């Protein structure tokens, strides 16, 4: 499992973030990206020593300032469920996958020609022009 998939699944849930400077932010994760930049709502910020508190409606945190994230235990179960439901729909290795179009292709998606002038005589790339 990748940390980004856990983080993506944690969207909408409560979480805790500690930054490199020791401050912690408690709030609801709204959005995250591949750099671990996060957008948090309904935040309570705690100072490094834990003696000062600030409450604010939202915060955007740059990923590289993060030390760690604490996520609710139930979120990892959701990641499992999601990956299971994905494999139910399309088991790995069974789909047509990537690659060139075939003669028996029934999909409407035309195969992209790499070199327009090239023609090997086979009826590949059907649907193309």
């Amino acid at each position, binding site marked *: 499992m990748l*940390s980004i998939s856990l983080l993506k699944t944690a969207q909408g849930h409560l979480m805790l973030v500690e930054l490199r400077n020791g401050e912690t932010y408690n709030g609801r994760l709204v959005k995250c990206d591949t750099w671990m930049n996060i957008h948090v709502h309904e935040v309570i910020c705690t100072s490094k020593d834990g003696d000062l508190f600030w409450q604010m409606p939202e915060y955007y945190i740059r990923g590289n300032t993060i030390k760690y994230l*604490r996520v609710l235990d139930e979120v990892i179960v959701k990641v499992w469920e999601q990956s299971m439901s994905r494999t139910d729909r399309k088991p790995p290795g069974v789909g047509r996958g990537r690659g060139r179009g075939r003669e028996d292709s029934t999909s409407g998606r035309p195969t992209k020609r790499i070199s327009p002038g090239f023609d090997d005589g086979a009826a590949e790339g059907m649907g193309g022009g």
Partner: protein
Amino acid sequence: MSSGTGLENLVDQTISVITNDGRNIVGVLKGFDQATNIILDESHERVYSTKEGVQQLVLGLYIIRGDNISIVGEIDEELDAGLDLSKLRAHPLKPVIH
């Protein structure tokens, strides 16, 4: 290409992570990525002290950012279960200084 850092061998095993700020976090490795960001489940921190035994703080599900990780170690669960942490005294680790 496939065997990058070697962490794939440790997935679903209990590991010990030492962070740059000198913390020791123990938990079950659930995942990692290119940047050594690590997912730890059922994790707890072990706080060392010379005055009293090792304290264990329950942390739960953690994503530790790779930037903040110094060491990832395998834990021998049998050996670890045999430790009497309440009798163990140790100096706390100092943070990494860049």
